[in-house]
């Protein structure tokens, strides 16, 4: 543990933290703009050129709003709730490999905060804690709409975690590793996992939509039925934290989908044109970022196309369709991996 290593880690943590914040901030702007464009409108265009300062204006508004804590609420938990949501949203960013390692004066600097050898387990652990933020926030509000929203949110997230986990197990079987860094490195060139795991990829994406509580799975918020869902009683920046956590989650899940199935920082045929390691690493980061931006756009595109599911439809889709499908995917993957042995048997 040298000092330079420590400083390098600090710098990369800071960069990822700030990047996550900025991207999430501009996703709010992007969401409003894309929603507007998809509906033949203009969207926010008053704050700065093309409304580019809109997120700042929103942030100032959020901070300036009156802070309301219901007198019947459990105050400690009421404050902890949005904090947990925000924290878990940031924590998942730790394991994402942003690019190959940089080589400066013969020392390798991997563009990843930490490459845990069990990072997929870590990912699912953190995702499960994310439910607590919503559940605690909703319960502590002492309001039936909040509680209903929180119960819906947590049951939805827990249900879809099963299918998500099963689809990832198939991925682990083909890649043979739990480390995101290695998964990304294996997808050199065109060997993207989506080619080998199309069904798993589809299931994972659908579950990612449900995990981030995005439309068409935005039942926890469900403004037409539940007032505001789990954050009904929240105001000021605590509400902002809940809403912001959703955008951070969207960013992180786009990054994870890209890393798992769409080659991470890899781009086909780039190795033919560029040979310098540092240039490749930076280009890799750019490619990953482009994929993430497209992922976020895809999230928004779906949101402004599809209507919301009914709750029974949501549960039917989760338990009766996605889980059997992911088990089928698991079995098919197993058979495909064993095909040589099976050929010998018959």
């Amino acid at each position, binding site marked *: 543990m040298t000092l330079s290593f420590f400083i390098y880690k600090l710098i990369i943590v800071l960069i990822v933290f700030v990047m996550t914040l900025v991207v999430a901030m501009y996703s709010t702007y992007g969401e409003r703009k894309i929603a507007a464009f998809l509906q033949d409108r203009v969207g926010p265009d008053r704050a700065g050129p093309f409304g580019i300062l809109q997120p700042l204006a929103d942030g100032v508004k959020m901070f300036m709003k009156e802070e309301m804590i219901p007198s019947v609420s459990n105050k400690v938990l009421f404050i902890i709730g949005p904090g947990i949501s925000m924290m878990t949203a940031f924590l998942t960013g730790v394991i994402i490999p942003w690019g190959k390692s940089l080589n400066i004066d013969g020392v390798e600097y991997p563009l990843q905060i930490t490459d845990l050898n069990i990072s997929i387990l870590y990912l699912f652990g953190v995702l499960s804690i994310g439910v607590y933020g919503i559940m605690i926030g909703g319960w502590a509000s002492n309001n039936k709409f909040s509680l209903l929203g929180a119960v819906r949110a947590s049951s939805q997230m827990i249900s879809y975690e099963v299918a998500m986990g099963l689809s990832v197990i198939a991925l682990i079987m083909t890649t043979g590793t739990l480390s995101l860094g290695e998964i990304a490195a294996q997808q050199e060139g065109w060997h993207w996992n989506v080619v080998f795991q199309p069904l798993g990829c589809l299931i994972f994406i659908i579950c990612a939509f449900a995990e981030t509580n995005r439309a068409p799975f935005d039942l926890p918020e469900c403004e037409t039925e539940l007032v505001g869902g789990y954050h009904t009683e929240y105001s000021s920046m605590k509400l902002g934290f809940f809403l912001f956590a959703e955008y951070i989650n969207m960013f992180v899940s786009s990054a994870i989908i890209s890393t798992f199935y769409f080659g991470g920082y890899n781009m086909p045929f780039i190795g033919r044109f560029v040979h310098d390691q540092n240039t490749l690493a930076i280009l890799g980061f750019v490619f990953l970022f482009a994929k993430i931006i497209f992922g976020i756009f895809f999230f928004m*595109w779906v949101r402004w196309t599809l209507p919301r599911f009914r709750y029974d439809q949501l549960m039917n889709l989760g338990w009766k369709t996605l889980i059997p499908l992911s088990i089928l995917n698991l079995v098919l993957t197993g058979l495909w991996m064993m095909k040589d042995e099976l050929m010998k048997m018959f």
Partner: protein
Amino acid sequence: MQLTNRSKVVSKKEMTFMESLYLPAIASGMMITLKHLFKKPATIKYPEQIRPFSGIYRGQHVLKRDEKGAERCTACGLCAIACPAEAITMTAAERVKGEEHLYREEKYAATYEINMLRCIFCGDCEEACPKEAIFLTDRKVDSLYTRKELVFGKDILVESINNPIDLSKRQTEGVKEFKHHKEFAHNQLFADKAKAIKH
């Protein structure tokens, strides 16, 4: 009765396998929204762009002056009777000597108020007026903060001598033709109202 040929009979047939997958339908829906991404927005950016008004738009009222600058209104009250929203009130006063340049006839409106919150901008006052005094114009009534402010008095309604309101856009051939026989129109209206009160 069939109004358009776009109506569809609702069917509850079982979905085919491909339909029950939903994914093709979702993909086609997303292509539709993608097409809209590149369409020109229908928005009119209001304070910068103002939609052109029709020449005969019925906006804020004006009390006209004649060519010498004297007020035309004689406080006859026909507009107040014609008004379906009962938005117009006035008090009449007699012209004294030396006021000939201010008021055209011996009687004039000392106060004349239109409650813009009641007014429905139907234009019946304009139709009823026998003296060509009140007109609706293509000016919008501003949004204001109190109800009191929205009761417009003579200070707002009467046009200024130096800055007369242009009404030429409203004087279409049809309007001129109508005005030619206008006396009957408002008499008829007045007669109907009187009959209705009697009954």
